[in-house]
């Protein structure tokens, strides 16, 4: 599904990613763990096409198609979804209106019919209930005045509504208490399928108790320095990143 090869990325001429390579096959969940400053958020932003990240070398393909040549909205239409570490507040735009606009923009770009108001509300009601989101919250301006945990749940709600094929979860556990974490993880796990892949970016192992990865990669100083099974996350939790930071330096 996702293939990253020798990716080099700079921000204002400062190299952040230095030769990152990664294969994420369809149906798999991979975790990316690493210390602060390793380039985890840079990876999520460069994959989704945020401005200000300069790709100086390497390729990224999604099902063989050059992802880096596409606009952010085109990447979303191809099925790429980023659950933001810090979801933005969108004043004046009710969450429902926002999401229906997004859903119909994607459908239109794919040549599919737009979703009707009734059908959309029914779907939103069911999805919100599963994530224990109060339906009235969806009538409020998106994320404005929401708590950190509510914002993260809204990210998962949007994900469940848009049904993307490639999910990037950037520090989704930050700001969540244990009950909210379980709800969010259940929501994510419900989306696991043979056609869908996930990249779970996290600093801590905790989230991986709930969302079990097929593989764990250690990102340090801009490249993958170790890859293993779920046991690698436990080792990192026990021993820290120091060994890998030394290896990368």
């Amino acid at each position, binding site marked *: 599904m996702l293939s990253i090869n020798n990716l080099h990325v700079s921000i204002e001429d400062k190299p952040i990613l230095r030769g990152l390579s990664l294969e994420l096959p369809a149906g798999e969940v991979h975790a990316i763990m690493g210390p602060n400053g390793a380039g985890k958020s840079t990876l999520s932003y460069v994959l*989704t*096409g*945020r*401005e200000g990240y300069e790709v100086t070398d390497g390729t990224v393909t999604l099902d063989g198609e050059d992802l880096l040549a596409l*606009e*952010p*909205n085109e*990447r*979303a*239409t191809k099925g790429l*979804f*980023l659950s*933001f570490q810090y*979801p*933005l*507040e*969108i*004043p*004046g*735009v009710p969450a429902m209106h*926002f*999401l229906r*606009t*997004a*859903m119909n*923009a*994607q459908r239109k*770009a794919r040549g599919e019919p737009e979703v009707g108001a009734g059908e959309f509300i029914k779907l939103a009601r069911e999805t919100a209930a599963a994530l224990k989101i109060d339906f009235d919250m969806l009538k409020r*301006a998106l994320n404005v005045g929401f708590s950190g945990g509510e914002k993260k749940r809204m990210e998962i709600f*949007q994900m469940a509504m*848009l049904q993307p094929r490639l999910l990037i979860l950037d520090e989704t556990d930050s700001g969540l208490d244990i009950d909210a974490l379980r709800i969010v993880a259940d929501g994510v796990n419900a989306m696991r399928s043979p056609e869908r892949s996930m990249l779970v970016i996290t600093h801590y192992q905790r989230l991986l108790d709930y969302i079990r990865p097929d593989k764990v990669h250690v990102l340090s100083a801009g490249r993958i320095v170790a890859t293993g099974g779920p046991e690698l996350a436990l080792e990192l939790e026990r021993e820290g990143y120091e060994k890998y930071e030394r290896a990368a330096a």
Partner: protein
Amino acid sequence: MTLSAAIRTGDVAQLPGKRDEDWRWTDLRGLIRVLPPPSPEVSGEVDDGPFGPAELTIVNGRLRGDTAALVVPAGETRTVRLRFVSASEATSHGAHLAVELGEGARLTLLESHEGRAADYVADAVLTIGVGKDAALERIVLTNDDPGAVTVSTAIVTLGYGARLSQTVLAGGAKRQRIETRVEHPGHGAQVRLDGAYLLAAQRHADLTSVVTHDGVGGVTDQLAKGVVRDQARGVFQGRIVVAEGADKTDGRMGHHALILSDRAEVDAKPELEIYADDVACAHGNTVGALDEDALFYIRQRGVPEPEARALLTEAFVGEVVERIEHEGAREAAAAWVAARLGG
């Protein structure tokens, strides 16, 4: 120095200009060297305005029908569509209308200023008296020609317990000024004075207001928003004066503008002039660009950039539209905004 005096006398020296403090950003004297000839009388039908068929229509400065003033008797409730239509190219005209609301009367005034020709100069003056405990909601929509010069002035006097709720939506012209002056007696009277200017190309719009609080316990709540792009220029001048002894005045003023291009300009002068001791007054003024982080977030969800920008801009202006109480007017205002931000 007013445009109406200049039109009446034909003397351009009567035009307000840079040397008048309140006109320095809307300099008519420097702009108009010779006034265009007086507008002719036009008798033909004019099709419906933005609010639908109108009760009062003023074409080229002349009020049609035999009404001389708009009077709502005490206790009565009316909705009146009032149109100012400029129908002749490169001509000038002025109009005056008196509006009177008796005690406890209610009026929804749906006012439009429409250009059906190019390069006209038009002045309109409304003198409005809102009686004790009466309520006026005034919505002003403008669709002026890009070559027009227009000034519209409302002089409002309120009785005790009266309410004025106003929303001005300015689309600009070569020069366009919409001015509101309110004599606020306090004593339970309330004023909401909102506005929005949405300007593209080389259009100019100037929202100017002066609210003078003369009595105890008055409320003024003002919210203006602006969006300028291309080489457009928006002007906001808001003044709230609280006279000596007008204690317990509650005055709030907010002006917020988005500048969507490097060559667009916004000039803002929010002023609070307070001579009383015990008041609660505040103003806020911001001018900036769209939030790039929010734009990226919306695009990541699949919305193309132009639509993402329109969504944020419409939401920004939406706050003003939502405060309109009259449902039909709110819908007409929303359509007006969407038409200007869509293209």
